């Protein structure tokens, strides 16, 4: 810091802070940083010392981003060189084995990898040299704000760099020089170890370090349970000790335990699942009797009229055209069956999701309990929902609807909760000030004000149900999805495509009508 009194009028040295930051080599970095600030640094500018030192330079200067860039670039080149070594040896072995075609192939690869190694090394160093001063200047800019950041030159940082390199480089390079053992070879190795047979330490090392993560946990195979039905209709539990000699890994052990749990629930609480299946079937039958059981002329006219009154003539024309497509290509019955599934799933979603959403919107406990569950439900891939549905409810339409409900419910809950939360505090306060009871507040203020959000939720539910209903065809839910799944299996692209377009049209019809109806209302 220059003091006013002593150097009055003197311009402070603009390079001083650069020098203070860079330490050794301060003149060079001072000039370079000045040119960066003046925007006169030539585009070709490279730092020769950094280019030569690469990640060592970066470690000395304490720029860890540059360290990783330089280190990874050099490692990629080194791995290519290791591959040269690997295939050179393999070629020599092939000559001994007399496998000419392998010799040719490996020698070709050797040349290619050698070229790659050289090109990558040169390109990597050039890039590094070009980046070095620019990254170093950014480090300077941050250091100006936070003086605890690394500055100057410090050989102590080389220790950290060496540790990182020692951890990464040898294993990576070793892996590149070896043909890794395949899974079967490793299973054999594990068996040998379990049986007490001798194995080479190299084989053990290769199996456990350079390919799959080693199996650390070995568990006794769980016993087998069965639940035979007695003469009086009750069930008894029969346990059979496992006859397997070998222990199993964690995955096998837990999978078998889960299967046993499901078996137990099905044996003793089957009536619950049967009951659920029954009621879903009742609901679906009622809906199907409307959509499938009505002559197509009636249903089609009904659809167009609904579209016209709810969403206007343009949407009605679109709905009409889509219906003609479905009818012409022979999808009418299947499409109606799909629509029935969607309607059934949507009804269940709304009936269950609305109160749940209100609870989440009003109570902290509700939010704490339901939000993580919803997060999980939305992260799990839709296919996974089919598993519990099949496990407890077997195959067919009811489990298909159940999987759909689980998949499509989250937006209903979330958007209902959002709508409830968005009701202004002041509006609620006003209602309370005029003597509203909690129930009146809910029915006359909160729900009406949340309605747009709730309707958006219903629209989401319909769209998501439709996509899941197609997937649920895999477990026998039928409908348009079945045609797609079947066509996929038979590689009949044309048939699948036509059905796919049909599904898209159904989705667009519902979406257009619901959205337009919402917009016209507000």
């Amino acid at each position, binding site marked *: 810091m220059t003091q006013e009194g002593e150097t009055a009028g003197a311009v402070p040295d603009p390079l001083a802070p650069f020098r203070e930051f860079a330490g050794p080599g301060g003149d060079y970095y001072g000039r370079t940083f000045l040119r960066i600030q003046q925007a006169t640094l030539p585009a070709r500018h490279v730092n020769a010392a950094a280019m030569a030192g690469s990640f060592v330079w970066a470690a000395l200067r304490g720029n860890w981003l540059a360290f990783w860039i330089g280190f990874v670039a050099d490692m990629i080149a080194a791995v290519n060189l290791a591959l040269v070594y690997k295939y050179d040896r393999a070629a020599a072995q092939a000559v001994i084995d007399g496998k000419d075609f392998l010799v040719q192939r490996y020698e070709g690869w050797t040349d290619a990898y050698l070229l790659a190694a050289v090109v990558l090394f040169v390109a990597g160093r050039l890039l590094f040299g070009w980046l070095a001063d620019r990254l170093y200047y950014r480090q300077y800019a941050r250091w100006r704000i936070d003086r605890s950041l690394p500055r100057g030159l410090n050989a102590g940082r080389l220790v950290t760099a060496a540790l990182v390199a020692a951890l990464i480089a040898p294993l990576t390079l070793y892996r590149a020089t070896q043909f890794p053992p395949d899974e079967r070879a490793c299973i054999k190795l594990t068996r040998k170890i379990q049986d007490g047979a001798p194995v080479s330490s190299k084989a053990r090392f290769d199996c456990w370090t350079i390919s799959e993560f080693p199996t650390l946990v070995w568990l006794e195979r769980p016993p087998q349970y069965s639940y035979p039905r007695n003469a009086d209709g009750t069930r008894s539990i029969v346990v059979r000790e496992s006859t397997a000699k070998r222990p199993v890994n964690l995955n096998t052990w837990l999978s078998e335990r889960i299967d046993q749990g499901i078996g137990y629930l099905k044996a003793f609480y089957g009536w619950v699942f049967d009951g659920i299946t029954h009621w879903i079937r009742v609901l679906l039958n009622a809906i199907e009797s409307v959509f499938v059981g009505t002559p197509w002329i009636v249903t089609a006219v009904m659809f167009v009229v609904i579209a016209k009154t709810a969403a206007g003539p343009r949407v009605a024309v679109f709905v009409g055209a889509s219906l003609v497509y479905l009818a012409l290509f022979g999808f009418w019955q299947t499409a109606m069956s799909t629509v029935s599934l969607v309607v059934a799933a949507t009804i269940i979603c709304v009936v269950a999701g609305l109160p749940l959403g209100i609870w989440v919107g009003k109570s902290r406990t509700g939010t704490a309990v339901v939000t993580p569950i919803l997060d999980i439900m939305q992260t799990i891939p839709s296919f996974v929902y089919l598993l519990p549905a099949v496990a407890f409810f077997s195959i067919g339409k009811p489990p298909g609807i159940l999987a759909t409900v689980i998949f499509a419910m989250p937006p209903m809950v979330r958007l209902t909760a959002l709508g409830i939360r968005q009701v202004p505090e002041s509006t609620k306060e006003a209602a309370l*000030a*005029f*003597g509203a009871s909690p129930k009146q507040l809910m029915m006359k203020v909160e729900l009406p004000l949340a309605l747009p959000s709730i309707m958006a939720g219903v629209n989401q539910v319909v769209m998501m149900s439709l996509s899941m209903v197609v997937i649920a065809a895999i477990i026998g839910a039928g409908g348009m999805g079945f045609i797609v799944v079947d066509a996929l299996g038979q590689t009949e692209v044309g048939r699948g495509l036509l059905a796919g377009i049909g599904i898209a049209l159904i989705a667009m019809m519902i979406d257009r009508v619901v959205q337009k109806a919402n917009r016209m209302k507000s």
Partner: protein
Amino acid sequence: MNDKVIEVREVWKIFGDRAAEALAAIRRDGLDKAEVLERFEAVVGVRNVSFDVHAGEIFCIMGLSGSGKSTLVRHVNRLIEPTQGQILINGEDVGALAPEELRALRAGRIGMVFQNMALLPHRTVRDNIAFALELRDADTFTRHQTADRVIETVSLQGYGDRMPRELSGGMQQRVGLARALAADPEILLMDEPFSALDPLIRRGLQDEFLALSRTMRKTTIFITHDLDEAIRMGSRIAIMKDGEVVQIGTPEHIVTHPADDYVADFVKGISRLKLVFAHTIMEPPEKYGQEHGDPPDAEHWPRAGPEADLDSLVNLAVGEDRPIAVRSDGGRLVGIVTKDALLRGIQGEA
């Protein structure tokens, strides 16, 4: 005569989980707002406030934002429960009411108007106005009849079937006022009702409300952050600062005798022409006599009553060299206002 409609007795409100502890500490050690926040993570909203509101008067509570005035008014219909203290309405303890009684009180006897109107956007003006009646399960016919009557009171004829969003801010606040009046309550709570409106509309609504108030004689608590408004509207004014009531009094009393520097600072810019009266600035005839000798022609001086305001005194003094004689109803000379005293009085130095 007991015409106290609302009695607020030593009300404290402290927000925070440790409110009771904080209150005990304040009473013991006299902590201020910042110390309470630091030691108990509690915010003092209302600090030992007591006042009475008499039947038919407009009681203004004036204070800057954060002074606790909105919190205080919400105690009257128990939208906020006091940490300590009592609110009596016609002698009945509001805090002791059962939920159903409280709802009946809110729906039938207290109307409230909010700064941001807080109308229900999905209901027509008429259904908004009849909301309190609807909550008490009145039938549709009664509701519509009552609403239409109130719509006339606030001059919103023809807007009954409109939605609130189709109305301007001023009209929306008329709806808010109509909603508060619909159940014909004896008490009105007005929480900065005109603050969000632009000045011209505000002025108009103030005048209209004053006119309405004169005919309806509803006991009103009127919250405002604007001293001009408080002085225009209020029969009496309470000035709040940091949750405490600093001063309660008539507009004139507050302007001429501010209780402390804070209030004095507030009233500095207020025009005193309509607020200060002859009896405040006149000097006794004896004193005038000592200084100027006995006035020979006092009989011919311009004369004014002791209740004449500065505005009318100025009218008398313009183009007149003699002082003004202040005479009581009986014509007795009670004081003399010289030009100097008048000018000082306007300035606020009297």
